[in-house]
């Protein structure tokens, strides 16, 4: 067996390494994003289910409830819109929500299977690795949203042409917030089996207590308490940010809340994954015997 030459290495002398520059950081980011995309492509079932879920809501739920749920003219809409059109931004949010939680599931899986260790022992700063992982998750989420929007377009649910471009920053920011939340949750989940709790306590309440399926004014009429819960739900603002962006508008309150929550969740996740301060230290769940 031949061995590769290692010119910098001489036994007994401290090895020298080139200082990491922007190029190295970009290589690392590209590698993490590429891996996430490859994993997604290799898991066809995940892609199909991520597409089927919102389409069921669009094709079946929205068609069935079109006559039951009237939507009055509320911003950003200037005319009456079909119920399918109303719930499309919410379904985009749903894809981001599920995808963000899925990426947290994959982090728990990676931690249980040991793959997480290869990421965490990289010499790059821990915060950078986690942000890279988050960006990778967002890239995959956005690809799923656009796949859904293409199918919806053929179904007759069409936004203004420019809206498909304008919505991209809103999808990115909302995806970041939900991936950061997923990452924070993944640091708290000790075993993969506990992930079902995320479905019951995060995804479903987050989705239904939001304007994804019905406007907030209708919720306020039905239950003032639920309305207050909706207002406290960050996902509410993600949906509204996406809805306004489809029509080339910025809902500044939503933008502020989503940006603020992204920073908050991300900071908490970085602390949680910091070996000296975080939850990882308390739980010691990186595997091994002792």
């Amino acid at each position: 067996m031949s061995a590769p030459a290692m010119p910098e290495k001489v036994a007994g002398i401290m090895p020298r390494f080139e200082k990491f520059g922007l190029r190295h950081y970009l290589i690392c980011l590209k590698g993490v994003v590429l891996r996430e995309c490859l994993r997604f492509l290799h898991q066809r079932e995940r892609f199909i289910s991520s597409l089927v879920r919102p389409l069921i809501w669009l094709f079946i739920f929205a068609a069935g409830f079109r006559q039951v749920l009237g939507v009055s003219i509320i911003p950003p809409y200037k005319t009456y819109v079909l119920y399918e059109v109303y719930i499309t931004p919410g379904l985009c949010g749903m894809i981001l929500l599920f995808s963000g939680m899925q990426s947290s599931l994959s982090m728990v899986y990676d931690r249980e299977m040991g793959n997480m260790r290869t990421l965490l022992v990289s010499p790059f700063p821990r915060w950078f690795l986690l942000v890279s992982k988050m960006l990778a998750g967002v890239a995959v989420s956005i690809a799923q949203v656009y796949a859904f929007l293409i199918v919806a377009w053929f179904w007759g649910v069409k936004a203004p042409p420019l809206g498909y471009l304008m919505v991209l920053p809103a999808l990115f920011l909302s995806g970041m917030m939900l991936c950061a939340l997923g990452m924070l949750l993944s640091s708290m989940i000790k075993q993969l089996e506990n992930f079902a709790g995320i479905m019951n306590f995060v995804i479903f309440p987050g989705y239904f207590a939001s304007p994804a399926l019905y406007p907030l004014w209708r919720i306020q009429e039905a239950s003032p308490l639920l309305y207050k819960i909706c207002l406290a739900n960050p996902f509410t603002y993600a949906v509204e940010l996406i809805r306004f962006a489809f029509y080339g508008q910025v809902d500044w309150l939503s933008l502020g809340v989503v940006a603020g929550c992204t920073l908050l969740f991300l900071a908490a996740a970085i602390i949680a994954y910091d070996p000296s301060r975080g939850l990882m230290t308390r739980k010691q769940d990186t595997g091994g015997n002792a």
Partner: protein
Amino acid sequence: MQHVRTSGPRDEVAALDVAGVSHSYGPKRALNDVSFSIAPATFTVLLGLNGAGKTTLFSLISHLYDTRRGSIRIFGHDVSRASGEALRRVGIVFQARTLDLDLSVHQNLSYHASLHGIGGREARQRIAALLDTVDMQGRQHDKARSLSGGQMRRIEIARALLHRPSLLLLDEATVGLDIQSRAGILATIRKLVETEGIGVLWATHLIDEVEDGDHAVVLRQGDLVAKGKVADVVRASGAGSIRDAFSKLSRIEPAGSAEISP
């Protein structure tokens, strides 16, 4: 602090310096005031039964856990304070399999290269050379899932060497492998020590992997009970062989420390 072995007359920096390290999981003490250091270009065996604290020590060295008591330095870089500089100099093969089974061998290795800021042609060249080193040439497009346990280990060793570390940590790297695979992997690692000057810390509980010329660190229930050249450890323990010495030193009942200093 003395090295387990110094490899030359120069006053050189230790490849790994563990000083007064203790670690607990809640009330359970996993490591108790462990101190040793290893010189570059040496093969050091970390011996201990299951639960002795080997994996905890590896997790501390690789900064998966923070060192709360004591200090760990890799080529002079403190793992807690300068983790990036320290981790650039160390390659790690974990006890659990850590390849992504859905990806190909090349994709797994490329991913690791990117985690060390190595990309493009340089990464491809290093991958090709290292697959040759671990006798896995021609397998780069195979899915990791299709490899045997021994082949996966070889790929993990190639991965640990991709960023050209000066210290290699292997945690029970041969567990679950057949005799031939174990011998092949061990021979590859020993050759790296000779030809590349890499310092190796080889954690195992398989005593037949130890050779007379090696250096040994023996852990028992979190305590360091012996360190030094294998021959010195055997002599100090009063046993006739390293197998007997390990059995004696690993007994659960209280026993005197057989600490050896060169």
